[in-house]
């Protein structure tokens, strides 16, 4: 591959290897480890013409290998002998070297471009499951029934004042329920897990004559730590007094029994795409300005496709979004 050296102009035209890519032996007579004993060094000056010279250098000893590797990986001039001034700078390139280097570069560039294009950016793909169910801790369960309450007591239990502590155990064993209102013996009752509201009322001595039993869902499952209020006839069920202080809990108590349509916040989530400013305004943490912005976002950017897109509205950050997540839907 390498022709005879022959007389060449120093430092300028001695690259006949056709390999301009930095590893050319022809222009590098002194690349070997500086500590290589004798022969390799001498050999280096007289141009390492074949693999044997390189192999000899490779065998030149552990320290030589260490320093050579360090030099090549790091550019440290361990090979620089202070007695020898550095050679002249060499800029000129042979046409063959340039062509070879350019060919290698074009190949590299083509490979890079192929890899980039092969990732298929822009090609349609299956929808990503944005609505991944993440078991995030609920702020409070004002509207959502606790999981153990089952589906039967979903939003229909709104007419019973429920104040659900954050921790609702009661999956096994007995549960403790506070029954108040129109019952004969208001107070704490202990029930078997999975008991219905009717069991709780019975355990509290049964409903009084004035109780409006059709205002409560007697078939609803009660859970541990709940407070159940049985309204008297003509009485509007009110929010339970217990400390369900979480955000949004105040709005979650049911109002439908009395037909009290005055309250804007209902037990059902607000539909972001149909709700008006007033309905949005009633959400906790949302004032008239933010409500208007939500409507603006809807009219300008098209309908919401996920609750998460509320974050696009200026003024609604991840924190507020986490609070609203259960109160709105799309």
């Amino acid at each position, binding site marked *: 591959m390498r022709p005879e050296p022959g007389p060449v102009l120093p*430092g300028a*035209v001695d*690259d006949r290897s056709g390999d*301009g890519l*930095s*590893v*050319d*032996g022809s*222009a*590098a007579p002194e*690349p070997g480890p500086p500590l290589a004993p004798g022969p390799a060094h001498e050999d280096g000056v007289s*141009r390492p013409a074949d*693999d044997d010279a*390189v192999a000899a250098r*490779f065998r030149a000893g552990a320290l030589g*290998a*260490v*320093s050579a*590797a*360090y030099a*090549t*990986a*790091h*550019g*440290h*001039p*361990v090979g*620089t002998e202070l*007695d020898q*001034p550095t*050679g002249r*700078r060499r*800029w*000129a*390139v042979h046409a063959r*070297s340039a062509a070879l*280097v*350019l060919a290698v570069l074009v190949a*590299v*560039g083509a490979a*890079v*471009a192929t890899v*980039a*294009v092969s990732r*298929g*950016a*822009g*090609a*349609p793909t299956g929808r990503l*499951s*944005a609505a991944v169910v993440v078991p995030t801790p609920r702020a409070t369960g004002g509207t959502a029934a606790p999981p153990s309450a089952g589906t039967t007591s979903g939003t229909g239990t709104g007419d019973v004042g429920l104040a659900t502590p954050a921790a609702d155990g009661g999956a096994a064993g007995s549960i403790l329920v506070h029954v108040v209102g129109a019952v004969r013996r208001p107070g704490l009752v202990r029930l078997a897990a999975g008991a219905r509201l009717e069991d709780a009322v019975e355990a509290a001595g049964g409903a009084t004559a004035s109780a409006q039993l059709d205002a409560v869902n007697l078939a609803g499952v009660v859970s541990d730590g709940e407070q159940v209020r049985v309204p008297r006839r003509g009485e509007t069920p009110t929010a339970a007094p217990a400390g369900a202080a979480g955000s949004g809990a105040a709005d979650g108590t049911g109002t439908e029994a009395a037909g009290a349509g005055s309250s804007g916040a209902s037990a059902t989530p607000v539909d972001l795409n149909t709700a008006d400013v007033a309905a949005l305004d009633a959400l906790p943490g949302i004032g008239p300005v933010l409500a208007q912005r939500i409507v603006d976002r809807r009219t300008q*950017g098209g309908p919401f496709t*996920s609750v*998460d*897109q509320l*974050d*696009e509205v200026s003024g609604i*950050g*991840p924190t507020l979004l*986490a609070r609203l997540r259960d109160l709105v839907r799309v």
Partner: protein
Amino acid sequence: MNAAGRPPVDLRLAPAALGVWLACWWACASGATAVATAAAGALVVGVGTVLALPPAVAAARAPGREPGSGPARPRGRTRPGSRGAASGLVAPAVALAVGAVVVALSACAVQLVVRDRSGLGRLAADGRVVTLDARVRDDPTPLRSTWGEGVVLAPLDVTAVDDGSGAWRAAAPVLVRGDQAWSALAVGTRVTVTGRLGPADPGERDVALLVPVRAPVVRAPPRGPVAVADALRSGLMAVTDDLSPQARALVRGVAVGDVTRLPDELGAAMRTVGLTHVTAVSGGHFAIVVATLSGLCAVLGLGRWTRLMVLVPATAGFVLLVRPDPSVVRSAAMCAVALTGAALGRPSRAVPALAASVVVLLVADPWLARAFGFVLSVAATAGIVLLAGPLARRLSAWLPRSLALVVAVPVAAQAACGPVLVLLSPAVSLWSVPANLVADPALAPATVLGVLATLVAPVWPPGAHVLAWCAGCATWWIARVATTAAGLPGASVAWVGGPFGAALLAVATTAAGVALWNWRALAGAAGLAVPWAPGARPSLAGWPWVGRGTLRACLQRPDRPAAPPAPVLPARASPPPS
């Protein structure tokens, strides 16, 4: 065959490397159309120049003729003593440089188009909420700032985007500003994340910033070699947990490049005295590891091909272990060039290896051109390669030769890196060179022991603990030097910031160099007696070779900071979320 048996400094690829660098630096912050146009323009201009060149050069050979135009003229002139052969040699040089630029710009344009097709930039400009499928690209890092407590930056490679109305594949990097949940994600993990996109600065690698609105959902844990690297890293974390604070931070830093536990004051001291390249794995550590491996292979008497079979996977694995940071990538690329040379039966040399690495890396990843770690690494290496030798010769007028070489290396690196460092923080440390000089001997043992501890940790934790403790003794010295030097007067001298400050420092450095080179004339002008002539000091040649080798092996100097001191990000830490 060379005039005085001296090797020429092979700068044939240097114009190409410089041109590619400038082109990529510009192209990163430009649109795909502009870059493609520039590539075409460069191609046309280059072809025209090359075709026009040979006559011009032939004409220039006539004495007294001032040459015409074309970018090739300076190159033609900087080549003394080769005028006779010039005519056939300038055109290839121009063709090489321009061709490299064209290739780099074309590759960059393709990558920009791919990023555009990902659509993230458009969505980010609108501040849209999207769901992304992505892979964690690099270790999530906690953001250190006064108000950004608990904020974690996680770089992702996005593979698919869902904007609520449709989904498409994507290939673009995105930076997540998440909460603590993100710090638990290992590199290579596939996650789904929903959040709001925000625009990133032009020229930055990431096309957008994402503030998540949900916790990340892990789709798949990392697999294959990345998982092995993760296991090794966490093994080292376990065995270094009960070490002293400096050892815990620095052993992890030098072994696997993890600096998350670095105490703030120690980190600040390291930055002040220019020792940041020691805190985390950089090109220097990489070179130490490769050199150690090469030495082992030589001791075992392995042949050329066996050696390559050992070195290639080992270096690739090490890159994977310490994460491909810019300076590690630079060092690995130079190593790859060297190994290619070995495979081809050619010796390798640092200057062309550096230039070739720069060209190839920038073609593959143009955004490296704006990465401070890469710039510093290349500048330091170039400084060492080009300046250390002449500087050592010059210094040997005053110093013993061995000491001159040892001093010349950090001085050369500092001279090359200083202007870049001023861009990062407008200060100059007077103690940087001495601190590096004193601290560096501890770096090799710290690195080797730390890497050994990493490898041993999964199979034999007690042994790894002992190794880590020994590495901690070496890092103690480094930490001690850093804190001491940072406390000295003049540890941080204010300097003009910005590009002007950098230019000023470059000029000052050059002036100092010129003064050093012409010290005899200056001294004569000042009426001072010349103490002795350069080159009159005793030579290294008389030393036993083992002593020389040990001296050299111990006093090698790694390159400049791998991890620049958290430059831009805190500025982007906007006020706390509402």
